[in-house]
């Protein structure tokens, strides 16, 4: 059959007419295994010869291989387009608790804890001190207020006491003076006679001092 094909190749136009004749008479076509081998590039002599003779198989192989080529091209185009629109994640994906394996993580955790505790204590102290200050300030204010409130009363009382004492003293002096005057007006036989008793003089002197 190969020899026949070579003769056909060398005979020009007569070659085509013979192919048509062979195609019309061809009852057996390529099996699936032969077809697969043909697509894989393995082309035994018998398959080549059959393709020369059978237009149906030749056309079918061309159609299938062309479709596969189109599929490869189109799918690559699709994949390139899809890959271009897909975000690239270059970061290494790690398990959720992988950070526990790093000593730096523990150091950082300890520092963070110490910092948090320090801040908490400072805030607590800052939060407590103003209360104490407020209490002491309130107490001082209350004391001042009380002192301020009491002071006029004390002063008033003191003034009243002083006034009372002075009044009492003045009243006593007045009463003594009146008593002296009354006594001085009383004529005694001695006075009448130019004889003054000591008590009378004392009373008179006292009345004079009071009036002065």
């Amino acid at each position, binding site marked *: 059959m190969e020899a026949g094909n070579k003769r056909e190749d060398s005979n020009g136009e007569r070659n085509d007419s013979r192919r048509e004749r062979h195609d019309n008479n061809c009852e057996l076509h390529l099996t699936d295994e032969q077809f697969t081998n043909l697509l894989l590039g393995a082309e035994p002599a018998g398959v080549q010869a059959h393709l020369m003779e059978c237009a149906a198989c030749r056309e079918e192989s061309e159609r299938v291989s062309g479709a*596969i080529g189109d599929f490869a*091209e*189109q799918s690559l185009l699709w994949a390139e387009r899809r890959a271009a629109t*897909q975000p690239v994640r270059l970061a290494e*994906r790690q398990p959720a608790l992988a950070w526990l394996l790093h000593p730096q993580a523990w150091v950082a955790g300890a520092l963070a804890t110490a910092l948090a505790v320090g801040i908490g204590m400072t805030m607590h102290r800052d939060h407590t001190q103003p209360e104490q200050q407020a209490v002491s300030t309130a107490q001082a204010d209350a004391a001042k207020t009380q002192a301020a409130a009491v002071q006029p009363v004390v002063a008033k009382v003191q003034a009243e006491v002083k006034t009372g004492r002075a009044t009492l003293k003045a009243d006593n002096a007045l009463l003594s003076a009146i008593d002296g005057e009354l006594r001085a007006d009383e004529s005694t036989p001695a006075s009448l006679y130019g004889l003054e008793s000591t008590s009378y003089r004392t009373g008179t002197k006292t009345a004079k001092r009071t009036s002065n």
Partner: protein
Amino acid sequence: MQLALNPGMIGCAMGEAIQSELDDIEALDRAYRARLLRFVAYSTGDMDLAETVVQDCLLKAFNGRETFRGECSVYTWLAHIAGNLVRDHQRTRKFQFWRKVQKTGPDLSELTGVLPSGESSPETQILARERAQQVTGALEGLSQNQRSIFVMRFVDEMELQEICQATGMQMSTVKTHLHRAVKAVRLKVGGSA
């Protein structure tokens, strides 16, 4: 003076180049993200899963770059990681639940907004898209292994030996999956079989 090239030196230089490629996750992302996304999306038929798996795959490859021995290409190694990640995700109950609720496969109709290149007319591009959609439809009826191997071989153009390395399957198993996948595509696109 004539320089003599030592094959060992070439291998060493290539190994260093690969290692430097793995050391730069941005370069790794630029070079392989789209291919991996296509591979996982069409293997699983789940767009959300594909994006998650590709992201995890690149990160896992970057973190485990010391374990790469250079016995295969970087893409084969990445496809192997991606395949394992897909299996891991699909084992979870959460995935199985959401798979029943919602499944969003790759949709080539998203490309309708792409302007036609100067090499082909709009009509040609529309025809090409329709043919590609036919292949997509054929793949939807296949198992995940069949789809993965089909995509690796005919889309990523990996050798059968590389597919064996990436999937951990025997050569005969790979060929069987590939044969079934081609049969389905031939039935859908070729109109015979």
